[in-house]
């Protein structure tokens, strides 16, 4: 489990994360939702140590990450998989090399065992047979799936996904969402997903935190979100015509 307690972060005179607390549970898809620029990505970067917190605690199974030594932090990071918004695949490596990279760095598996694991991960994300392609040869959806394969290659205990379906068509988005949900449940991973896509929220939102202007405004799940009375969340959720129709259909 990951727990954040009273996290604060300022950049210059901008207070971008304000006293945020939340619990992310293993085996569940934990979602961070909110408008663009509300502080979601910053919060995740604070959690994984890419930015330093001004105050507060980030507890990975009880260990306060910001207070750990570099060596202890690296030990925790070896258990983290992260899916970046743009994929962040290594351009100079093939898909196979990308997925094998964490195995090369942190395991003593034989070449055959590593290849077996790579193929297993590629099968999970439906990219079988694409081993020798370079990132530049992949479509946006394939890049996301490839990045997900790399993120799960080393059996992560914690999985962070930064807008996993941004820029994807609705069908591919659902494929990615369900992949993440299935992997989370199958391997009991503590998964943290950043999104502002309401389709994703309704598809996989089991434990949701709504962030507004750097603050935790609301927590709940996908069934509760439709009945919210929180004004900011209501405006966010029912901004689209589609969601307004969902609301009116639900109220009938």
């Amino acid at each position, binding site marked *: 489990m990951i727990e954040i307690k009273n996290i604060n972060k300022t950049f210059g005179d901008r207070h971008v994360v304000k006293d945020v607390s939340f619990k992310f549970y293993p085996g569940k898809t934990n979602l961070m939702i909110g408008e663009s620029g509300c502080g979601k990505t910053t919060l995740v970067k604070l959690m994984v140590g*890419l930015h330093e917190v001004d105050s507060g605690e980030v507890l990975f199974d009880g260990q306060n990450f910001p207070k750990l030594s570099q060596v202890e932090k690296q030990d925790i*990071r070896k258990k*983290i998989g992260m899916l970046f918004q743009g994929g962040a695949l290594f351009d100079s490596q093939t898909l196979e090399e990308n997925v094998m990279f964490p195995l*090369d760095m942190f395991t003593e598996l034989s070449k055959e065992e590593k290849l077996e694991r790579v193929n297993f991960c590629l099968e999970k994300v439906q990219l079988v047979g694409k081993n020798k392609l370079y990132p530049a040869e992949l479509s946006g959806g394939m890049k996301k799936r490839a990045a997900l394969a790399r993120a799960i290659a080393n059996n992560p205990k914690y999985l962070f996904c930064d807008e996993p379906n941004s820029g994807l068509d609705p069908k591919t988005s659902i494929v990615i969402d369900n992949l993440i949900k299935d992997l989370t449940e199958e391997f009991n991973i503590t998964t943290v997903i950043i999104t502002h896509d309401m389709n994703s929220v309704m598809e996989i939102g089991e434990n949701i935190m709504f962030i507004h202007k750097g603050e935790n405004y609301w927590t709940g799940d996908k069934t509760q979100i439709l009945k919210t009375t929180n004004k900011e969340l209501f405006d966010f959720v029912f901004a689209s015509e589609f969601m307004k129709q969902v609301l009116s259909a639900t109220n009938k």
Partner: protein
Amino acid sequence: MLLYRVFSKPQKLSIYIRQIIFEINNIGITSLPIIAIISVFMGGIITIQAAHAIDSPLVPLYAVGFTTRESIILEFSPTIVCLILAGKVGSNIASEIGAMRITEQIDALEIMGINSAGYLIFPKIAGAVFIFPFLIAISMFLGIFGGYLMGVSSGACTSYQYLFGIQAFFDPGKFYYSFTKVVVFAFIITSVSAYFGYNTSGGALEVGKSSTNAVVYSSILILLFSLILTNIFLNT
């Protein structure tokens, strides 16, 4: 601080060795054609200029070979070729690492628990420090060979005079001076370029700026250290 991370203990030696071999090829071997072309031409040019400058009958014509050798070994190959490599290799390193920074590839390495500075920069420094002396040795040979071709074919001197000249008053200690400079310049080019690339933030425009800064600062530092090392080794 960055250099401390670069030179901290490798997380997996076999991976680092693989990367160093890759960089020796990427930085060194791929630079051979440009070095070869420039060296042969510059050797020829230096020979013609030396022959043109020697218009006194009191100066023997073997001085053409002697001047070419001294110019190439002392300054052209170690300094001018390294300035050219600062342009080719330095901009390549800065833009490669800079692009990795803005596309979050470096963040990905960090989150995996990898010392990104060590993994990305150390093999480049080690590869360059290893391969640059060989490149410069080849440049010296080709420069002197180019001088021979031009000197003899243009009639500036005879083959015997040129070959006598390049062997005259030879001090092997000058190689020590030249190759010390090369090792220092290899370190400057790779570390300065990697620094600018690693600290890139923003987008494609900033990657371009990092690449430009890498070449400019590497070149200035090469000239500065050339002066310092020349003063240390030769001004005695």
